[in-house]
């Protein structure tokens, strides 16, 4: 079990973007179960007008994905920490394949992410899993790919003014090439809208 302080020490994120509160169980190379409590005092609910319907307070799906991704990041970091790896690597979410929302989560809910490690390919990790509140399913994801890329490469390209999506822009370098190639930072949240209805 990891408490919040240990999570802060592991993740590169800072407040208020650390979207995990506790790790309930962690088996490096296999699985992590981590929780995040949603409260009405979070930044995503600030400055909302009064009198909104309950559904308007549904926890934003991009933050659901981010929170799940942070659980995956801890699983990955704890899996590779004994292996030689790039010291200045920046972790990035690269692909989300078939993320489906089964129900909304609201202030008062405690999200529980169950993340299974599928495979590690070089500096990339592939995970799969689901998010629950109690025994109720909130979301499932077929696969999520995260990538670690050298900070120097990202900074150099950022300084040249390249934008994500530009050819040659950050953050992904084609394997075996020093530069150029297509960028793969994409979120494919197919079916999300229809599932959310």
């Amino acid at each position, binding site marked *: 079990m990891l408490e919040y302080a240990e999570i802060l020490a592991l993740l590169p994120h800072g407040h208020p973007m650390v979207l995990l509160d506790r790790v309930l169980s962690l088996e490096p190379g296999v699985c992590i179960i981590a929780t995040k409590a949603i409260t009405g005092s979070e930044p995503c609910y600030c400055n909302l007008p009064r009198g909104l319907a309950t559904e308007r307070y549904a926890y934003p799906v991009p933050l659901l994905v981010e929170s799940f991704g942070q659980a995956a990041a801890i699983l990955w970091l704890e899996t590779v920490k004994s292996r030689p790896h790039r010291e200045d690597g920046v972790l990035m979410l690269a692909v989300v394949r078939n993320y489906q929302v089964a129900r909304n989560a609201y202030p008062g809910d405690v999200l529980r992410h169950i993340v299974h490690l599928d495979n590690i390919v070089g500096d990339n990790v592939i995970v799969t899993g689901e998010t629950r509140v109690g025994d109720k399913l909130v979301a499932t994801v077929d696969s999520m790919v995260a990538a670690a890329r050298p900070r120097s490469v990202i900074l150099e390209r950022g300084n040249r003014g390249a934008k994500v999506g530009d050819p040659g822009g950050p953050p992904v370098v084609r394997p075996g*090439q020093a530069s150029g190639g*297509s960028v793969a930072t994409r979120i494919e949240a197919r079916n999300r809208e229809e599932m959310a209805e």
Partner: protein
Amino acid sequence: MSRQFEELREIVAEVLELEPDEIAETGDFVEQYDADSMRAIEILSRIEKRYKIEIPQRELPQMQNLAAVYTVVSRYAGWQD
């Protein structure tokens, strides 16, 4: 074509979100099917899981089309034609 070749075609098609018969043997993944480095990694990962083999990432640049993927995978899986 061998059974394995058709299996690889299905894996590639699934990742590229195409029908298997849309993937030509020598169709370049990037040029013709709009693939990128992350797609390549997904394809590699699924092949590793399917055949319980490990393919080094340095082989990725060569895996530009279905025929090339088959050649690389054959080597690591020990398939004989």
